């Protein structure tokens, strides 16, 4: 009959436990191991064909990659994915109103007045966004409003009209621009909404969607083209249109 000394058994298990801990610690330290020198450290190293990294200074930051085999947006009817090393896992929305104000000057009943403003939208990891415009039609200090075009129509000088669109126009003058995709239409997908997407036709209904995207999108630059006509009996005064753009992204 073999009798093992308790000390021997005890020693075996202590050694086993120490080995186990060392194995775990070594594995953890390997997974957290960074490449570094006294003054620099390289984060998120990828060993392989290509990789990505962040570069930053006091005021700027960039995320660059090399060797991506597949990049950009891939989408089907119900799904979409962004490929590449520089994709973000965080939902993102950016809206910039790039114009601060617009003065259309003195209105005339013999000729239309036109003008443009601009904004851009970028939204990542969304299933789309809507841009809604909300404001009363141009209103004077006395409370008179310039009649908005509730259905798309062309310019008619001498008839009170207020409307807008988000496309390039040639009538009553050449003004406005179609949505511009940055850097191109393979990355960005914003469009002018129905009712506001026909050249030389203008409309305004507060609360309506004027632009949208049906998927995650890079930056789209939009130009809003405004049209105002007045009649001989449009009440005198300074008319103001205080425009609110409300962007809703669905994630």
């Amino acid at each position, binding site marked *: 009959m*073999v009798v*093992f000394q308790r000390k*021997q*058994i005890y020693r*075996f*298990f202590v*050694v*086993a*436990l120490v*080995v*186990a801990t060392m*194995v*775990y610690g070594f*594995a*953890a330290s390997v997974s957290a191991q960074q490449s570094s020198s006294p003054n620099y450290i390289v984060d998120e190293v990828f060993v392989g064909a290509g990789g990505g990294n962040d570069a930053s200074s006091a005021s700027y930051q960039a995320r660059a990659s090399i060797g991506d085999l597949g990049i950009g947006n891939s989408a089907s009817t119900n799904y979409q994915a962004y490929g590449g090393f520089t994709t973000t*896992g*965080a*939902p*993102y*929305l950016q*809206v*910039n*109103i790039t114009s601060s*104000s*617009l*003065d*259309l*000057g*003195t*209105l005339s*009943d013999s000729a239309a*007045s036109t003008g443009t*403003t601009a*904004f851009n939208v970028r939204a990542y990891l969304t*299933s789309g966004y809507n841009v809604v415009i*909300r404001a009363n039609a*141009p209103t*004077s200090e*006395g409370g008179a409003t310039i009649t908005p075009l509730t259905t798309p129509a062309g310019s008619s000088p001498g008839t009170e009209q207020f409307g807008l669109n988000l496309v390039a126009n040639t009538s009553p003058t050449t003004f406005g621009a179609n949505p511009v995709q940055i850097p191109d239409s393979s990355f960005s997908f914003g469009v002018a909404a129905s009712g506001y997407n026909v050249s030389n036709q203008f409309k305004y209904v507060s609360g309506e969607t004027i632009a949208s995207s049906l998927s995650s999108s890079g930056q789209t630059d939009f130009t809003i083209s*405004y049209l105002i006509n*007045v*009649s*001989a*009996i*449009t*009440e*005198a*005064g*300074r*008319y*103001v*249109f*205080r*425009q*609110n*753009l*409300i*962007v809703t992204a*669905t*994630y």
Partner: protein
Amino acid sequence: MTRSSVLRGRVLALSSAVALALALLLPAFMSPELVSAAEQVNSRSVTIDKSGTTETDVEYDFDFTLPSTGVIQGIRLQWCTTPLGTCTAVSGLDVSAMTVDAQTFSEATTFADNAGGDENDCTDSTNSTREVCLERTDTDTETAAAKSVTLSGITHTGVTANTTVYVRMAFYDNNTFTPGAGGVNILFDGVVATAIVQTLTIQARVQENLMFCIGTTTVNDGTTNPGADCTAISGTTVDIGVVDTTTTGAVSPDAEGNGLNGIAFLRTNANGGTTIGYRAVQQSGTNHQGALRVLGATCNAGDVDTDQCFDSLGGVQTVLAANTEQFGMTAEFVNTGSGGTTTAVTRNASYDGSAGGYAWNEAGTLANVANASGAVDDEALILKFAAVAAITTPTGSYQAQAKFVATPTF
């Protein structure tokens, strides 16, 4: 080999196996970072009703779809400048005065604002400007369907223009916001975003506009087009021909004269209305200088039929009478024949011809003929003049003059 050595070797092998097994299992028990198992809510969005940088009582409407069923008793909402990482408040945005306006859940028990101060994950007291915690007591399961929560009373006070706001949502199965080990009590989460942008102001000016002119016209009704505007209006004289003792001998348009009426054309955007009146020109002579008279004649101060001044009918509409010396004017029609869109002009009762009469104020003071209640789009007064002689009225070439005035109120 002795039996003891064999047994010793087996023990060693067993111990080694145990050690390796521990090495594989230890990370699971010792790792300081266990990933949350919360499912992400789908089709999530937030719609605000006002996006300006300085707004009060902004409404946030959260819409989302639960990916699966679960008991939800706590909802934590954080307004942050980023979707992930440390939550930094959006400067100028304050949710501390929010109210729950509406909510749509399958369970009838409504969520209310956590009134108990900070509580486990909920820090809506410490971070009152950027965090809202809603709670209820309901241990029944919510369906995996679309839900919504609408909050109002949120303020944007000087938020920097073009600021993106990320609202982080977390749904707890308890109303004490206890996350549990590894966040196991957080059943669902998700981030939505909206943007606070500058209000864009478009402005333009409409100038005050008045087009008023006096002339003559062949139009003798209210519908024939007298001309598109004042460029089509001319003439200075209405000749009513030879005045006799009948009531029809000298009434414009008189073929024995020049067959013309007078016309006063008005177009204005004066929304406050316009008055139209006239002042009889005080001609040379003595007495009744504003009457139909012979220039320079000396007339009796009273109304006599033997001087060279016709008796004016005065400020009240009076019907013509044969053999009675009379002179007057009426605005028999308000003409809209130019195709304008308004019918804003109404005549003064003394000059509307309703009784078939005429009036004439010779005093030289402003006499009101008509008023417009608002903007006028091309309306005109057709002015008719008439005179009746008495048997004793002296012969002569008589004239009366008037200056018409339109006074708009913008």
